[in-house]
């Protein structure tokens, strides 16, 4: 009995896919890069790497499966009932053609939808492994130095990555016990409540009047000044601020108690810093005052106000704690600005996108230089936070401050040159977070992107220093791979049928043993076919541009598809 061709092809496709994935999985498991990844990632790596290899070689696998299935179908076809007329091949293969089209769609979904995410996950795994090893060596060093709390913290960070590691868990428990035996537990830091935000000018003036009536001159001046800044057209706000300022300066002289006068002067000094747009200095001044006068409501209020005013200028260190152990994009390099008089380049060691908290950057370096090679400025900063600017752009805040310790500040270090004081702690950048993720030095960012993303960002990515032509070639190749899949599937169908086996029954063991060689030969042929495509399309991109390449690619694919279909239809019964 002749099994329907589609059924035979389907079972061979399934068998080849299952065996192929199994082999790729085994290969990835055996070739696990123990020097780059934690043993905890072994099986996940094997699953994901195996999947990527499977997608990479899916075309030859399918081509081989189809060719073998069809070529072996011939032997059973000959055993049809005597007197039955042979069916035309085109009729036998009708439903198979529809299946090939569906398979090509499935291939496109796997290659462009699923594989980029898996690739990113593998890259994250590698980075997290290197971090975990760094935490482990940090813990070992802390242990040697007798810093048990430090050892405990480093091991805790390690366990965030390698959760099930029993040895390290035991080491952490031991470090915890040692740390608690040697030092009393530190009081938990009390989080200060952030003041309310986003108040319009009219309500600020109302608030200023309210405080003015109650003789709270600082608050009245502060809110009136803010109202004047928000809406310069208001005439009442500057007047109210001037009146309040007069009262503030007059009030110092009226105080008779020396201590009260000194406190007042100190508050005024800190307040002046806040007004002078130096909220970080004001914050630390108010923090010192709050430590000495914890019950003073003015100090508490302006401590909160300065913390609020710091937003957009600096960020708190606690925000980035633990962030470097999270997965992120590494080694980002781009041309930030390329003007007639200067070029600006930025290199970022790592970017972590923590959805609710924001986007944090590590190990930042930037340089601006003239065409003559003269460096205008060159800065480096250990941490940064990506913030939206008032004009709708983006900037990296380079100043990181400690909530309770003035000495715990990190800011940009200017290796040469400098920038105006107002700009020193901030670096405006052009790319968005999505674009930054694509600008990896190793090109993995763009390679890991799907076709829609690559198409949308191609112009912008090229302006940041990526090679436009290679991006465009990648786009054209990605667009035509499903068609290449289809063409090779049809060619395999006709090739398999043209050279079908001459066995009257099941093929002998010798032939079955050699079947694994078929995918190897199919891989050789299909990879050469894809490379020839790459040469033609790469040439058209270089010579005539992306649009021409898309037209040529479509034309070539259609011609080859027509040839493949004609060969399929022209096969003998």
């Amino acid at each position, binding site marked *: 009995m002749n099994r329907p061709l589609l059924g035979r092809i389907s079972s061979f496709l399934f068998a080849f896919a299952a065996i192929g994935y199994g082999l790729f999985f085994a290969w990835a498991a055996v070739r696990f890069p123990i020097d780059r990844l934690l043993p905890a990632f072994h099986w996940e790596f094997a699953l994901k790497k195996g999947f990527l290899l499977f997608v990479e070689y899916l075309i030859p696998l399918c081509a081989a499966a189809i060719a073998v299935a069809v070529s072996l179908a011939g032997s059973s076809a000959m055993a049809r009932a005597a007197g039955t007329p042979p069916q035309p091949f085109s009729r036998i293969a009708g439903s198979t053609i529809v299946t090939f089209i569906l398979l090509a769609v499935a291939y496109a979904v796997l290659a462009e939808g699923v594989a980029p995410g898996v690739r990113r996950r593998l890259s994250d795994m590698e980075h997290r492994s290197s971090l975990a090893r760094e935490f482990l060596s940090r813990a070992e060093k802390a242990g040697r130095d007798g810093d048990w709390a430090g050892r405990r913290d480093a091991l805790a960070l390690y366990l965030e990555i390698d959760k099930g590691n029993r040895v390290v868990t035991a080491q952490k428990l031991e470090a915890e016990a040692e740390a608690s035996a040697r030092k009393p537990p530190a009081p938990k830091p009390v989080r200060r409540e952030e003041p309310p935000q986003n108040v319009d000018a009219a309500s600020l003036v109302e608030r200023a009047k309210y405080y003015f009536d109650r003789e709270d001159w600082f608050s009245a001046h502060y809110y009136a000044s803010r109202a004047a800044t928000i809406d310069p057209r208001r005439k009442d706000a500057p007047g109210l601020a001037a009146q309040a300022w007069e009262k503030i300066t007059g009030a110092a002289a009226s105080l008779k108690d020396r201590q009260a006068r000194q406190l007042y002067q100190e508050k005024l000094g800190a307040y002046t810093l806040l007004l002078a747009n130096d909220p970080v200095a004001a914050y630390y001044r108010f923090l010192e005052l709050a430590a000495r006068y914890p019950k003073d409501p003015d100090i508490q209020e302006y401590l909160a106000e300065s913390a609020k005013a710091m937003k957009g200028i600096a960020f708190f260190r606690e925000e980035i704690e633990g962030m470097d152990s999270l997965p992120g994009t590494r080694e980002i390099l781009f041309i930030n600005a390329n003007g007639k008089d200067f070029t600006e380049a930025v290199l970022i060691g790592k970017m972590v996108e923590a959805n609710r908290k924001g986007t944090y950057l590590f190990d930042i370096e930037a340089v601006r230089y003239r065409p003559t090679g003269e460096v205008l400025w060159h800065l480096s900063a250990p941490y940064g936070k990506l913030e939206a600017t008032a004009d709708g752009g983006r900037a990296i805040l380079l100043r990181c401050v400690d909530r309770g310790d003035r000495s715990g500040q990190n800011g940009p270090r200017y290796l040469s040159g400098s920038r105006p004081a107002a700009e020193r702690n901030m670096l405006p950048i052009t790319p968005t977070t999505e674009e930054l993720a694509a600008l990896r030095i190793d090109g993995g960012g763009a390679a890991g992107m799907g076709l829609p993303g690559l198409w949308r960002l191609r112009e912008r990515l090229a302006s940041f220093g990526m*090679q436009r*032509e290679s991006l465009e070639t990648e786009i054209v190749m990605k667009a035509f791979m499903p068609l290449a899949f289809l063409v090779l599937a049809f060619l395999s169908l006709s090739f398999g049928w043209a050279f079908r*086996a001459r066995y009257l029954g099941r*093929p002998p063991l010798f032939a079955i043993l050699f079947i694994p*060689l078929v995918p190897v030969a199919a891989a*050789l042929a299909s990879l050469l076919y894809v490379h020839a495509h790459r040469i033609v399309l790469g*040439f058209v991109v270089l010579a005539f541009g992306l649009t021409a390449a898309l037209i040529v690619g479509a034309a070539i694919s259609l011609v080859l598809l027509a040839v493949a279909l004609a060969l399929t239809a022209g096969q003998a019964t």
Partner: protein
Amino acid sequence: MIPSAEVKEPLKLPFLFLFILLCVLAILSALNLLFTWGMYESGAHRFAFGYALARLPRSGFEVMLPSVVLSLLLLGMRMARRPFSRFLGLLICLAVSYAALVNGMIWLRALGQKSRPPQAAAVQYFRPAGFTPVGRVLLSVRSVEGNSLDGVLLVDPAQKSARFSVFPEAKAAFSDDEVSVTFPGARPLRLAGKPGLRPGAIFEPDRFTALFLRDFGVLTADFERLLAGSLPEFFAACFALLFLCTASFVFLRASRWPLLNILLLALAVRGYALLWHVLSVSLAPVIARVVTDRLLVRMFPSAAMAALGIVLLLVDILFIPVDRWKQVEES
């Protein structure tokens, strides 16, 4: 009486081979031409018909050998479908392919010598406002003129700090597979490395295709060296390779499953290119130590190919039934 089909097919075979060869040669030459322009010349000048015409003989020469081998394979496929006497087939294939390869390489080389070989220029690799990898560092330039680079930013991601360095100018130089950049100044700096260069990213083959192209590249380069050095050695090498390829038609009769036979033949031919690479490059120093005669050292890969061909021929004579093809046809 001999059936007419058996008489006609051997007569058709040389013409068929030449037709296949011309088609394959045209396709591969065109691909080689597009690749060469894109890889080495696209930065310096636009693609023009004159350039294509001048470059075509050289491209033809560079793909002549793989074209002949591929044509033999395709002819093998034809012979698998319409079999006739194996020795007659072997003789016809060997004679026609040998004549085509020897003449093709000699004439195309002579014609190709008139065209200017592709010369690497800085503009090909360093485009303003882009990053070009050179070894483990990256360079970005403001402008390029000849091999002079102006306003050069050097990025060394492996450094712990100060990963950017800026230089007013630099000079680029190119060798076969390396680019070197020299930064003048009080403390001159020279960088050299494998160029992970711009066109390289466009035409970069996957790892298996890269090995395939490497092996056939070595084969063609060795044949060109023999052709330039000594014609008898070149003739011998051509004969050895084609003898092995035609003797490999034994694979076409290995089973009664033509698809498997053809794929085995294709893999075998791929293996021969790898074997040549191993003998000519990887094992060359060992062979040079063991074999003292210089002629033998030069001809060692050819001799190995011929020996392997004889083994395959013996296998064909001794183990493959004479009527295997007849069985296939009858079945």
